[in-house]
Structures are given as C-alpha cells and as structure tokens.
C-alpha cells in the first residue's frame, strides 16, 4: 500500500516537474539572449561556430537578429527589411513558445511591418484608426514580454553579408 501510494505521488511529482520546468529553467533561450539583446531593440546574434553558439541548433546558413520586447508601456512597432533570398520573423513568449511566425512572401512587401500589442491594447485602439490602417498587420502577444527573432537566409556563404545588412536595419521600437 505504501509503495502504491508512493507510485501515485511519484506521478504527481513527475507532472509537476515537467509543467514547472519552462518557468524555472535558468538557461533557457530568453535567459541566454538577455545579456546580448536589448529591450525593444534589435541586436545581431553572433554566427554559431564549433566553439560557441549562443543557442543550440542555430542554423549556420542564417543571419539572425533578436529583440526582447516589453509591452508594458505600449505596443511595439516592428520593421524588418526583406533580404534577397528569404526572411522570416518569429515571435516567442517569455517562456519560449513560438506563437506567431511570418515570412517575406506572406508579408508581400519590401519589408515586414507589424504592430505587436497585447489583446487589451488592441481593444483600446480607436475604431477609426483600425479602419484607416487596414493594411497594417497587428499581432497579439499572449504575454507582456518575449523575444522577436528575425532570420535572413544566405543561400551561399558569399551572400551572408547581404543577409546581415538587411537585418542590421531591422527595428523594434516602442510606439
């Protein structure tokens, strides 16, 4: 009976540790980026090498820039110029869940332009503004803070500088 009780309790311990881990991990992606990436501003991430890589499993064919956002003081406006080959922007919550991603084709322009806000901030938008800005893409963040990662592909190593240059002009600003 004691062992059976222990097994049930063990199941609870198992579920609790799995559920709690994302919120307690001290070396998760957000924490790794914190020292390098400003709040509401983009920073280029160093290309991964065999000696060091700021995150594991980074694709070496891509130039990568990241922005930690904080919506506490209002929405964030995001502009990422499209590089010649392929560009994408992915939004992650503070606990590393990818909740939205868009690529240059879906954006269909010379640059990917988005407004990031919480559901409440979107609700507070004046109605007429939403109509006049119908072509403005609005993304709702499920959390107040998180990370935006912009990736630009270099299909050949010689094209990496063009990809990097596109990301250097990326902006992530409080409105």
């Amino acid at each position, binding site marked *: 009976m004691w062992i059976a009780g222990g097994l049930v309790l063990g199941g609870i311990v198992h579920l609790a540790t799995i559920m709690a881990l994302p919120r307690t991990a001290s070396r998760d992606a957000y924490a790794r980026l914190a020292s390098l990436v400003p709040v509401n501003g983009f920073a280029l991430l160093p290309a991964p090498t065999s000696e060091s890589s700021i*995150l594991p499993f980074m694709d070496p064919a891509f130039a990568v820039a990241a922005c930690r956002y904080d919506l506490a003081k209002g929405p964030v406006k995001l502009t990422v110029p499209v590089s010649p080959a*392929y560009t994408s922007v992915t939004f992650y919550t503070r606990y590393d869940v990818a909740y939205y991603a868009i690529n240059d084709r879906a954006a269909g322009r010379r640059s990917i332009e988005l407004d990031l806000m919480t559901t409440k901030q979107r609700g507070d938008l004046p109605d007429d503004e939403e109509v006049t800005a119908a072509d403005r893409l609005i993304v709702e963040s499920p959390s107040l803070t998180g990370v935006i990662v912009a990736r630009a592909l270099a299909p050949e190593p010689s094209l990496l500088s063009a990809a990097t240059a596109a990301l250097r002009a990326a902006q992530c600003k409080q409105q």
Partner: protein
Amino acid sequence: MRLLIGLLLSFVVAAGIGLGSSWYALTQNLSFGALELGAWKGYPRNGTVGIDPYARAVIARNGELPVGSGDGVAFTAAADDSGRALDGRCDVVVRGTTPPARYFTITLYTSSGQLVANSLDRHGFTSQELVRDASGEFEIMVSPRARPGNWLPTGGVDSYLLMLRFYDTSLGVATRAGREAPMPAIRLTRVCQ
C-alpha cells in the same frame, strides 16, 4: 513506527519515480506528436502554441528556440534508415529528394546542438548549394574524409545528428504520411576510419 517507515518508503518511491521519469523524459526527448518520415523525425507542433508540455520542458532545458510554424519545420535524424546510430567515423550517404519548400538546409550537429569543427568549416548545405544529378536527386557524403561532390565533414565525432529544415513549406501539422513528403534516405556504410 510502522507508519513512519511506510511514509518514508512512499516518499522515497515518489521522489525516485517522479524525478527519475522526468529526467528520463527530458534526456530521451519523449515528446508527443512526432511526424516520422523514414529516419527523420519532426515536431511541427513545437512551432505553435499547441506545443506539448514535454517538448516545452525539453526546449526550456536546452535553451533552443523552435522553428515557428509560419517560418518552417525541422526534422532530425540520429540513425540511418535501418536504425543504426550515425557514427562520425563511418561514411553515411544521404540521398534522394525533399518535399516542396522554397529553401531547405541540412546541418550536422552534436547531440547537444553544437556545430562540429572541421578543416573546411562546412557545417551543412542549403538547397541552393547542393549539386544534383540529372533526375534532380542529390547525394550527400557525410564522412570524416574528403569526398568528391557534396561532402559534409563529420570531424570524426562518435555520434552526431542531422537536421533538415524546410522554410516556406506546406509541410506542417497537417502532414500525415510519406507520400506527400519524400525524404532523403540515410544509409550508414561499413566504410569506417
């Protein structure tokens, strides 16, 4: 006294089973909803808010950022088509075609997601770099020694994994089986260093 010993026994069992199984699930990467295509395994759901708790825990522990579903989808292979673990001291042939995508990349990592040092400083190929034959198939030689054609050096490491990432693709959560997604075959040869 019996009660005390009993309680203690329960707690020891609980801690052992609970923490042990959590540790096992995280290190063995036991996530649900894998899309298995030959030796390749992908978790398209990991790039969405529908990510399962085990995958979330693994990702938080590794410190990686999964590929978002509007961006692409990632597949990994740690063994060849007949289940033999990929060995960096042996020649491995990756041959075939891929599902439609605007671009794909294939990259060689250690099991912890680091790149492997080699003389060429080559860690993978993009779809544009691969040399293909007349039928449009490509063949990548993953080998510790230089090979003609698409040579992906292993640096002679004991074990590694290959990651195949498709960008701007229709492949995703809704993909079911191999017919709509032809993946390259992986064959470990007996030619070893």
